[in-house]
């Protein structure tokens, strides 16, 4: 435990990198999965294409995807994009299903009422369907965020930043304290991010708390 306090600056530095490498892919992946999830919630064909594809993407081990990405998109192996792209892929694979399930579960009578009131499709989606789908969507987002935070460390095995660097350096120098520092950092970051999303979900869906 003393390592964290003795090397506070370094710890803070890897925390920043770790946070960036895990949050950016969640945001990009989430934004991409909204139109895809919407498509899958409306079309049987889209589901038949997207869901099996997402399952297969999920079986590719993160270390493998991190190693393959630079060759596929033509960047150097030490570029941060090599962690970001695989994590975006995992986030989309997970969130497409969550968003599709969430949108499919929006009650039909609510949608019909909105239509009858003259909501246009885009406005109805933004102000009716999507907010009602938020609880399930956010549950998916929490899983994606926690698993991303844990997965960023894998990037360090090929030399990229984040808490994983403390793992590999600690391993090479036989420094248990350093590895523990990274482990604690990862778990704390995951718990904080999870709690924050839970809170945001509660604030955004005040109706979910009444009428129980």
């Amino acid at each position: 435990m003393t390592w964290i306090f003795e090397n506070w600056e370094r710890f803070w530095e890897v925390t920043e990198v770790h946070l960036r490498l895990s949050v950016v892919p969640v945001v990009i992946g989430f934004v991409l999965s909204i139109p895809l999830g919407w498509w899958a919630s409306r079309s049987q064909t889209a589901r038949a294409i997207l869901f099996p594809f997402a399952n297969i993407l999920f079986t590719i081990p993160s270390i493998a995807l991190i190693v393959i990405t630079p060759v596929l998109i033509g960047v150097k192996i030490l570029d941060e994009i090599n962690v970001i792209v695989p994590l975006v892929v995992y986030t989309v694979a997970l969130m497409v299903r969550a968003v599709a399930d969430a949108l499919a579960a929006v009650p039909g009578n609510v949608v019909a009422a909105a239509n009858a009131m003259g909501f246009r499709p885009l406005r109805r989606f933004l102000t009716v369907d999507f907010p009602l789908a938020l609880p399930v969507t956010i549950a998916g987002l929490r899983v994606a965020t926690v698993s991303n935070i844990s997965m960023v460390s894998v990037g360090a095995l090929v030399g990229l930043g984040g808490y994983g660097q403390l793992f590999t350096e600690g391993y090479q120098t036989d420094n248990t304290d350093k590895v523990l520092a990274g482990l604690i950092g990862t778990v704390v970051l995951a718990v904080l991010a999870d709690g924050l999303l839970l809170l945001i979900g509660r604030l955004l869906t005040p109706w979910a708390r009444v009428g129980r």
Partner: protein
Amino acid sequence: MGWLFDPAHWSGSTGIPVRLVEHFGYTLLTLVIGALIAVPLGAFVGHTGKGGFVIVGLSNALRALPTTAVLILVVLWAGLGDFPVYVALVLLAIPPIMAGTYAGVRAVDPVTVDAARGVGMRESGVLLQVEIPNALPLIFGGFRGAALQVVATATIAAYTGAGGLGRFVFDGLALQDFGQMLAGAVLVALLAVLVDLGFAGLQRLTVSPGLRPVGTGGKR
């Protein structure tokens, strides 16, 4: 893909078949140990209904644990070998299996459980002959999730010098041999798909036909 189909890489003690068997071995033993720990815990808590929050909390905390760090810590404490690999992978396999078992047993219709007690079954019989068989679809769901994660993550074992398909990824990385890395990645993904198919088959054989989804509307 030339590397993958070169016959020279398909034989010998460091060839693809040996690494595949090693990788599958890690996965299988991990799932067995994980099951021995997680199924009784999940079933007990699901049956008694006590301590559900502990199961959920424990699962979430374990999920956030980075496997790489666990692997390295155990190697630093206990030395190289297969032991650290199993510790890291079992910790990874426990949450989905435990959560699946717990959720499965909890989700069994209380009317069915009452009926089992009504015909004079003991508590052990209720659990083993009624609740667990009825919970099998969700238990299998947990196992399949765990298996996917374990197959994918067993790759990391090679970082600390253990065997398995990860050897190709890490050796390829060290040698800048992209073909070897890609071959390792493709083999892991293939193994994951095969293991999942194996579980799907096992599930078909063991789950009571009465629990299968009916038609396209699903079980009601």
